[in-house]
């Protein structure tokens, strides 16, 4: 009897060791696209607006904003995301003032003020297009936990980048994100909450 009990305990110990090994050897989780570090997440920042003038984040104060990072040569995800935000804002039914839509280029080499300016007019609804010097863009990317990386493609390049929309309330505090593959209904809930 004692021997059986000992055997069972040995088996339990082996199982625990096995589970521990499995946990240790598990494939590492993919790096989260957005790393949130306490209260400093988000602004303040200074970038360059479509008029070529400095654009300070204080100009966003007093109104919630949805911020998205992309590049104007992006043919698919960027226009899809911005057009969707514009459509959801319309469906919210409280006009363009309900919240600001902010587009920041992660490709400042190709996207000057003129490029982000004209790009931002393509969605039938006001979008604040911003760019800046590579150093300014790098700083803002860090503040907002945004990853981006140029990838050569033929004789040009594409830019891999975080594709989530980040939502900030009227005091500039981070509230939530809308991911690219999120359905309209939960996204709408978040926008309602944001603008409540």
């Amino acid at each position, binding site marked *: 009897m004692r021997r059986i009990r000992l055997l069972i305990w040995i088996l339990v110990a082996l199982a625990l060791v096995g589970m521990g090994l499995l946990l240790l050897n598990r494939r590492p989780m*993919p*790096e*989260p*696209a*957005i790393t949130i570090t306490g209260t400093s997440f988000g602004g303040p920042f200074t970038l360059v607006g479509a008029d070529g003038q400095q654009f300070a984040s204080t100009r966003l104060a007093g109104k919630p904003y949805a911020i998205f990072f992309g590049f*104007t*040569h*992006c*043919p*698919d*995800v960027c*226009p*899809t995301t*911005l*057009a*969707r935000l*514009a*459509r959801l804002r*319309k469906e919210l039914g409280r006009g363009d003032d309900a919240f600001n839509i902010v587009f920041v280029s992660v490709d400042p080499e190709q996207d000057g003020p*003129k*490029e982000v300016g*004209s*790009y931002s*007019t*393509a*969605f*039938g609804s006001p979008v604040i297009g911003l760019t800046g010097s590579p150093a300014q863009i790098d700083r803002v990317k860090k503040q907002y936990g945004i*990853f981006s990386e140029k*990838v050569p*493609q*033929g004789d*040009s390049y*594409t830019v*891999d*980048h*975080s*594709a*989530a929309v980040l939502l900030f309330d009227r005091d500039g505090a981070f509230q939530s994100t809308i*991911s*690219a*593959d999120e359905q309209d209904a939960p996204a709408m809930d978040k926008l309602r909450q944001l603008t409540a």
Partner: protein
Amino acid sequence: MKRIIAALALFLAACGPKGSGATEIRVADAWARATAPDKKATAAYFTIANSGGAHDALVAVASSIGPAEVHSTSMDGGIMRMRKLDRLAVPKGATVKLEPGGTHVMLTGLVEPVKVGGNVDLTLRFEKSGERKVAAAVRDSSGGQM
């Protein structure tokens, strides 16, 4: 005379249906997104249905307005990655959809703006079925879902 008959037979064989393993490729719902002002790139989308008895694949796309490439879009931990696809499989019995946020045809090097109301002529080359031509209707940035 024999030679003429042989040539004729060859000609007819080339024109005729390809036998039991033939693919039946249909391309529908083609549309392209209007370009933002001054932009030289945009995307086009369509649906490919293969109702035949053999697998096929889309291997090239040409457009009437500039270079075209099939691209995949993938999300990897929230990061969007766009890559050129040399071959888009269209298995037998399958319907493959190119749509916003997913696989798309990237149109680049555009000289003229792509405007709502116009068409972009696309020529799709399939591994087995050869070429298909479609006219992609140009819609606004939302894909006409506004």
